[in-house]
């Protein structure tokens, strides 16, 4: 199976030539991005090398506690990054942590319980990463949309409050739009599956020599998994997040608006 995998250190050095293409474009067009490219490439090499060795150790050790530790680290990291995208929304990290934890546990739990994947580190760790990173992106989009739409529709929210509406009724349109914005990229990407992109899971299995027909089954499973997880993550983060736009007197917190 692994005979097809021919990437070596030497081939990677040759592959680095492709980075030079980006650097030349940056230099010739005076884009001022060459430093960012070099830092990005260096970080990618170092981070992935470290993760590669850690994963090798975790898979070799095959210890449930170590697998769980990896799960926790991925979830906390994803929540930290999602929280940062909250851009001033109070309790953004706490709410992201809850959303990503629930989304990941429910989705991963369903996959393990239905026998779609096994509770072994080589399956749990990468799948956790896939789920958590997708929820992280979805929550980031939800937060950005909420900040923008609360700002754009400030007058409408104020009027609804003045008419005696509860904060949920005053924000329901914003909530719906924000949840939708978190889920939309996943929905859009699944529409073009196979037509535009052969996504990571499927491509990886085909690369490793697995029968493409079997590989698509995994990809279908991943599609179901991402739909559920981004849905859960978006709805939890939005329903917890919108409350932060109001104070205890149920008044709109105008300091949060952009």
């Amino acid at each position, binding site marked *: 199976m692994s005979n097809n995998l021919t990437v070596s250190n030497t081939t990677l050095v040759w592959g680095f030539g492709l980075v030079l293409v980006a650097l030349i474009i940056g230099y010739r067009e005076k884009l001022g991005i060459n430093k960012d490219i070099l830092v990005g490439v260096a970080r990618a090499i170092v981070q992935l090398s470290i993760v590669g060795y850690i994963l090798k150790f975790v898979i070799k050790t095959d210890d449930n506690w170590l697998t769980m530790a990896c799960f926790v680290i991925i979830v906390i990291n994803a929540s930290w990054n999602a929280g940062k995208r909250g851009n001033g929304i109070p309790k953004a990290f706490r709410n992201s942590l809850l959303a990503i934890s629930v989304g990941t546990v429910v989705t991963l739990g369903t996959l393990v319980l239905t026998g779609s994947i096994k509770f072994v580190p080589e399956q749990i760790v990468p799948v956790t990463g896939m789920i958590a990173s997708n929820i992280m992106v979805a929550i980031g989009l939800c937060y950005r949309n909420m900040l923008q739409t609360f700002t754009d529709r400030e007058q409408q929210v*104020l*009027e*609804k409050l*003045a*008419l*005696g*509406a509860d904060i949920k*009724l005053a924000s329901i349109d914003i909530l719906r739009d924000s949840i939708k914005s978190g889920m939309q990229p996943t929905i859009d990407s699944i529409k073009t599956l196979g037509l535009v992109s052969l996504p990571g899971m499927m491509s990886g299995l085909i690369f490793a020599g697995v029968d493409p027909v079997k590989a698509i089954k995994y990809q279908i499973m991943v599609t179901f998994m991402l739909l559920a997880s981004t849905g859960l993550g978006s709805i939890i983060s939005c329903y917890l997040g919108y409350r932060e736009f109001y104070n205890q*007197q149920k008044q709109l917190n105008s300091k949060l608006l952009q």
Partner: protein
Amino acid sequence: MVGVILVKNILRIKDLSYQVEDKKILNNINLQIESGQYVTFIGPSGSGKSTLMRIIASMITATSGDVIFDGQSIQKYDPIQYRQRVSYAFQQPTLFGKTVKDNLEFPFLVRNKEFVEKKAVSALEMVNLDESYINKSVNDISGGEKQRIALLRNLLFKPEILITDEVTTGLDTENKEIVHQMLTKFNQDEQMTILRVTHDESEIKNAIKTITIKDGEIV
């Protein structure tokens, strides 16, 4: 037999101040409003009239002092319940949803009550808008009609106090008159207390009771 009419103070404002960072917007306001009064607040732009109205409407909270409504500090009320009793109408309202119906349905939704279209239609007729308006798109409504519909949202469930913050600004004479008649009717027939902020000369001239605010203080 001599009848005695007891008029209660529906609203009392006590030593109220409001400031944003170091800037004082309102300074030690004291005021009493009797139930059923139609009070007009006047004063230069930026004097603090709208801020005072927003505090009374519980849209913002005073830095110090208190607003007593119906014998109790507004801090002790559930803000949602309070705003259904003390309703605030904006200068330039926006209409929600797609149709006029969506807007008139909103007060019913707020109170978890079934929407009665007949009631909404008769409310529209009261402000010279016929039955056909109920299904009109909010994009096909003129500025004057928009203000009348927005005011109906405030009035469908008859609040005890209605605050109107320059609601006739930008309206033509005809629309101003319709709004004026509408508010007078609610004040006289329903004994609704109305607090009106205005810069309009004719409204000021015809006002029953006026309170002038200047530099954040009552003068």
